[in-house]
Every structure is written in C-alpha cells, then in structure tokens.
C-alpha cells in the first residue's frame, strides 16, 4: 500500500508524472485491454475504449483519493467507459445495448480477431444474452478468475449481490447451453 502511495504521488507530481504514467501504461495496458475487450467484444471498439480509459486516468489522477487501490480505480473507469461506449454506439444505430452486444457476438464467426472453436462461439453468444451486469460479473469471475471482493470494489456492489448475480448467470448459461445441444 505504501508503495502504491509513492507511485500515486509520482503520478500526481508534474515533474515525475510522465515517467510514472508511462510505467503505469506498460503495467496495466494488457489487463485493462482484455477486461474492456470482453465487455465490448470488438477489437477496434476495445482499442478506442482502452485509449479513452488511460486518457481519463491521466486527466483525473489528481482527484484520485486513494480510498481504493489504484488498480480497482482504473478497472472502474475502464468498466464505466466500456458501458458508456456500448450505450452511445447502440443508441446511434437505434438498438438497445443488449441487442447491440448480441449482434456483435453473432458476428464473431466472421471476426478475424476471433479464432475460437464452436464451443467458444456458443458460449460467447450465450454470455452476450445475459443482462449487462450479470455479463460483466460472469466475465470477471469466470474468465478473469477475480475474487468476489475485488469485483465488489470495482463494481461497487455487495459480495452477496455479486454471488447471486453470478449464480443466476451460470444457471441461465447452463439452461441455454443444454438447449443448444
């Protein structure tokens, strides 16, 4: 924690900011990219969102109060950015968020940046059918193997609610998968 404080101080100080920010990008770019990619699905969209996320982090680092870990704070920004992105993009085309995500998952088969097998494709399509929050919780818990406490901090939701969300998501996917086969 003390190490983080020193690092945050370096990020906040004008003289050391650029160097500290560069190492922050180097450290977290991949993790944040994959987190965002699983939410927005498309690579180009994920690229836009992850860049906006880091720009926001850079702009708002002075307002970071250290009530949570830097990592949690960044994940929260990335999650919000992803959800806002989906909202904007879907409304531009006149679709609901969920419809937009489902259409992206349907198109994964033709996506040059997706080379999963049929089972991957089926699972992704089923995950896309989940309500937004359940989908994020499922991604974080199932694919990223994050513990409930971390997810709870990032999404600012109680552990109990998250467990219930994940349980419902798994149950739905289970039913949908059994219907698919």
């Amino acid at each position, binding site marked *: 924690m003390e190490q983080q404080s020193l690092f945050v101080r370096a990020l906040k100080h004008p003289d050391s900011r*650029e160097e500290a920010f560069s190492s922050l*990008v180097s450290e977290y770019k991949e993790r944040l990219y994959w987190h965002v990619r699983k939410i927005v699905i498309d690579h180009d969209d994920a690229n836009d969102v992850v860049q906006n996320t*880091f*720009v926001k982090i850079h702009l708002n680092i002075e307002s970071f109060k250290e009530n949570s870990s830097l990592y949690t704070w960044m994940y929260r920004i990335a999650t919000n950015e992803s959800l806002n992105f989906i909202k904007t993009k879907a409304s531009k085309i006149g679709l609901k968020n969920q419809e937009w995500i489902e259409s992206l998952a349907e198109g994964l088969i033709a996506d040059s940046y*997706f080379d999963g097998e049929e089972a991957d494709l089926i*699972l992704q399509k089923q995950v896309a059918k989940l309500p937004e929050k359940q989908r994020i919780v499922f991604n974080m818990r199932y*694919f990223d193997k994050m513990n409930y406490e971390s997810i709870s901090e990032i999404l600012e939701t109680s552990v109990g609610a998250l467990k219930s969300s994940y349980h419902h998501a798994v149950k739905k996917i289970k039913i949908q998968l*059994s219907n698919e086969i």
Partner: protein
Amino acid sequence: MKYKNHNPFMVPKGYFNILEEKLLKKTKINLNANAYKIPKNYLNELEKEIIKKTLKISNRKNNTKLKSSLLALTGIAVSITLFYNIFTSKDPIIIEKEEVFEDFVESYYMEDLNTYEILSMLDENDIETNLKYSPKPKYEN
C-alpha cells in the same frame, strides 16, 4: 417441467451436470488460450498511442494556463491605462455649440427621422402658427 412432460426422450441421470462441466472445461481451456485475438505488435503500438495522446493533452493544458495568464495580464494593463487616462487628464473636453448642432444634423440624416419626429423635438414657440401663403395667381385673358 412443461418441456419434460412433452418430451419422450430421456437422458442418463445427472447428464446435464456432466455436460456442463465438460463444456465449460473445454471452453475454459480454449478461452484461456484466448479465442479473442489482437493484431501483431498491437500492445506496443497501444502504449505509444496512449503516451502520445496524454502528452498532447498535457501540452494543451500548459498552453491554456499560459494563455489565461497572458489574458489576465493584458486585462490589468488595459485597466491601468484607462484609469490613468480618465483620472489624470488635466484638459477638460470642451464641446462647441456648433459641433453639437452639426452632430444633430448628421444624426438626422443618419437616423432617417420623419417630419413628425422632428416636430416633436421642437418647442411650441418654434412653430409658426400663422401660416403665410401666396394667393392664387390670377390669369389674364
């Protein structure tokens, strides 16, 4: 339950739990090996792009600060000059009567006043009440 009632086919006990486990295990392995792909060298390019963007923002921020400081300084300078000119000027401004009249005439043409408006500006004394007119000329045969 409804589906079960109308479904003549049966599966071994606990089949769907095993199936789920098998499927999830399979997809987990595949997805951990990353079914989603990214372009070659993308992450390095991403880092460069982010640094470039944030540097641009920092420079813009600094320029804005400099601009607002310059603007404030200019404002102060203008205020001082105005203050000095207004309160330290010793020669009072004298306006000649003729100048005022000329201004009036000028504004008459500029503002395009009509006769009634001009009339309303005049005092009652200025208006002649006895109209002088020439009688009709007489034509001789």
